[in-house]
């Protein structure tokens, strides 16, 4: 895996992400500065990490989405390259048009940091091959604006094309408003882009990958990517 982690001013979970990529793939990712215009040669995975790019000012991800490096990311995705956006990264991908929809303020208008349960909807994607369809994983969220919405047509398409990869659910995998902390429509926690090579998700799988730290539920996502890329190569 030759991962590139984008670094925008105000991003603050890039260290978490870089460490996880190293722990799971055995290889240090390249850290790519927002003002750069090209990705490192041979990059096979672009990760847009979490944080508060530009302080979340104006709209979460809005300013970062217009940074020079994003043109390179768009071109990379158009060629089928794998792109993962987590939390602020998800917001940036939506603002940049790589993913549809918007992430609004959480229903209760408060920032929420807690472990949530996600139902993995499909296992036949590069991002979820490390899991079984229907499996429930427990990972942390930490965001104030993770309430996913899009117009009815877009939602219908996402659902119809099976592009919803993760949903907030109860520990036994049921959709339940009490277990949907931010009020996202249909409990949507993570979605695929049209071509299935771009994933945006609000929760932080990168924070649950070490057994010594308690839980490894997030590891499957990264291990799956490593396997996929190894096969592709």
């Amino acid at each position, binding site marked *: 895996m030759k991962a590139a982690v984008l670094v925008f001013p*105000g991003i603050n979970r890039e260290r978490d992400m870089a460490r996880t990529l190293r722990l799971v793939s055995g290889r240090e990712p390249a850290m790519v500065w927002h003002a750069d215009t090209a990705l490192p040669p041979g990059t096979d995975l672009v990760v847009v990490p979490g944080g508060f790019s*530009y*302080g979340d000012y104006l709209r979460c991800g809005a300013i970062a989405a217009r940074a020079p490096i994003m043109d390179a990311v768009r071109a990379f995705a158009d060629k089928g390259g794998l792109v993962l956006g987590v939390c602020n990264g998800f917001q940036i991908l939506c603002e940049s048009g790589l993913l549809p929809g918007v992430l609004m303020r959480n229903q209760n208008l408060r920032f*929420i*940091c807690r472990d949530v349960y996600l139902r993995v909807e499909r296992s036949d994607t590069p991002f979820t091959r490390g899991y079984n369809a229907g499996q429930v994983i427990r990972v942390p969220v930490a965001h104030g604006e993770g309430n996913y919405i899009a117009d009815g047509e877009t939602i219908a398409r996402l659902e119809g094309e099976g592009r919803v990869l993760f949903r907030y659910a109860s520990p036994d995998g049921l959709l339940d408003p009490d277990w949907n902390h931010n009020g996202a429509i249909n409990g949507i926690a993570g979605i695929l882009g049209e071509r299935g090579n771009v994933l945006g998700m609000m929760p932080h799988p990168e*924070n649950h990958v070490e057994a010594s730290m308690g839980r490894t539920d997030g590891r499957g996502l990264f291990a799956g990517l490593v396997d996929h890329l190894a096969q592709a190569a």
Partner: protein
Amino acid sequence: MLRNEPAITPELIADHGLKPDEYERILKLIGRAPSFTELGIFSAMWNEHCSYKSSKVHLRGLPTKAPWVIQGPGENAGVIDIGDGLAVVFKMESHNHPSYIEPYQGAATGVGGILRDVFTMGARPIACLNALSFGDPRHPKTRHLVSGVVAGIGGYGNSFGVPTVGGQVRFHARYDGNCLVNAMAVGIAQADKIFYSAASGVGMPIVYLGSKTGRDGIHGATMASAEFGADAEEKRPTVQVGDPFSEKLLLEACLEIMAKDCVIAIQDMGAAGLTSSAVEMGAKGNLGVDLDLDAVPCREEGMSAYEMMLSESQERMLMVLKPEKEAEAEAIFRKWGLDFAVVGRTTPSMRFVVRHGGNVMADLPIKELGDEAPVYRRPFVDTVKPHAIRAADVTAPVALADALETLIATPDLCSKRWVWEQYDHVILGNTVQRPGGDAAVVRIEEGPKALALTADVTPRYCEADPFEGGKQAVAEAWRNITAVGGRPLAITDNLNFGNPERPEIMGQLVGCIRGIAAACEALAFPVVSGNVSLYNETNGRAILPTPTIGGVGVLPDFTKSATLAFKAAGEVVLLVGETVGWLGQSLYLRDICGREEGAPPPVDLAVERRNGDFVRKLIDDGIVTAVHDLSDGGLAVALAEMAMAGRVGARLDGAPDGVPPHAFWFGEDQARYLVTAKTADVEAILAGARSAGVPVMRLGTTAGDALAIAGERALPVAALITRFEAWLPAYMAGRTDNGSL
């Protein structure tokens, strides 16, 4: 000089919080009347906040030394050595008055300020804590303050990117109109790469870094030391707005130029911004400072010298750079989009000279500005020791089970989840123990070394007996660190009190400091940094004396840290420490019997240390499965917390003869812990206890899904959890107003 500045009048002097005799002192010092700008500079340097004039003589009594202390009080933050070439840099600071005036921004800038103190010294912040005291939940302003303060702390820390992992939240009518916001930051640095504020070398460039200067918080420093009156609202225009985004950039830029070895001295601009940072750098380095305000990056038109010198705009730093590295440093700051300007030079003159628009606006002796600040030995009277309450004289108004059910849903004892879920407590991926336990445990990089962090104080104890209360605050911090398996190393103390010009308040301050000193001494737990906040009064009514203690300990291996949750049914529950059933100042007495009285539980520091060392050894040996220290609410509440955390019940024997049951279950005797162990290990533990002379008592076993005390109604754990979690969210949603559900 002194062109187009207002004339100095007695009113103007009073407005600057300077007493007539203090003004006389200024006249003697400089041999002439000060200019308006100079008056502002003196008021900033000589106010309580910067000069510690009321507390200085007493703070000298605090133990500040230990082999592992690298830097004690006096720098931006304290520094301790934790081995492997690593140092922990930490400090706690209050932002009480600003938070009362504008809760969100006041709390946010409080967090920003303390983070700057830590990374100014070359450390990367790895954790924040906060200790909050609010008024009676029924007070009309309380809910608004809680929501604003919590959102502000989260808003700043979350965006900056540091996990907020612990703290405490308490409510008491004595904080009506004067809430307390004490924020603590902890960072990690290379032990041989700590940066200090003393300038060195003549003619060195003094560089201004960070955000631009506006009219923010002018008079903030003076305000922060001014007693509150009905006119608090009038002080509003001085509100400072925090910009965590700029602070994050400032952090990365500072650490980058420090790594490139560009820095001779660095000082963040906190209270009294440019004035105190520049004076400090010069005075500490035995150098003069010559500032050219025309070079200061300003956000607003036509700012006067006075305004620039007193502005408390946030996210700013002052540095003395190695001249040959100036260009390299500037490039780094530009890359991060931050302002960079050479605003002065160090001089041999030992004078603090401020130029603006071709005029000399101030020319003062730099040493005296700091060192000659008035120091007061204010008169004080010791608090009268309250009578000890005999448990036998307290009748139990309700059944034990009912009392427990009530207590865990009171504002002070209920779950603070509503608060800490608004704080990102997992970012950086090193939070081993999240909020909800005794001390938070934060791994250093990928471990195995970790820090145990806590913030504690029991103000009602301090009010009843400042000396014992001071001891207890330190002891509880030490205990919380011990309870997770940490070795307590050092503390930061944040002393929040009323008006020191009143002898009884001064008596509380002196008493608490003596108690803190005694405990630090006995527990080898020195003070390495701290902060004093006085004049916390509203219309002549003081807050409860609140000396918040921030404790730091180290664990060699984070995977061995103990947690408070019951792990499984069938384990033996043991009580470590002696229980006489001390009800004086207990929450049982206050919230169940409606009596806020008596002497607080005494702290026997020798016993504290003996029992703690014993428990820590049990954790090291890995023969205990859960550990929890006893504090507010006593034994029954601690058991409930362990049961709720593990969703496992327990069956417990009745109180031993000689101790009234309600006193046994709810007394707040100190130096106690609860542990659970596998049956097979119990004998070894008891034997160890005997040889260590530590009283250990078998209470019962974990079992089923209810907490059942012999002869009492069994309490289903699920129902306890519901009550424990319900109060704060219900209160914040406006569904309950009274003290309880």
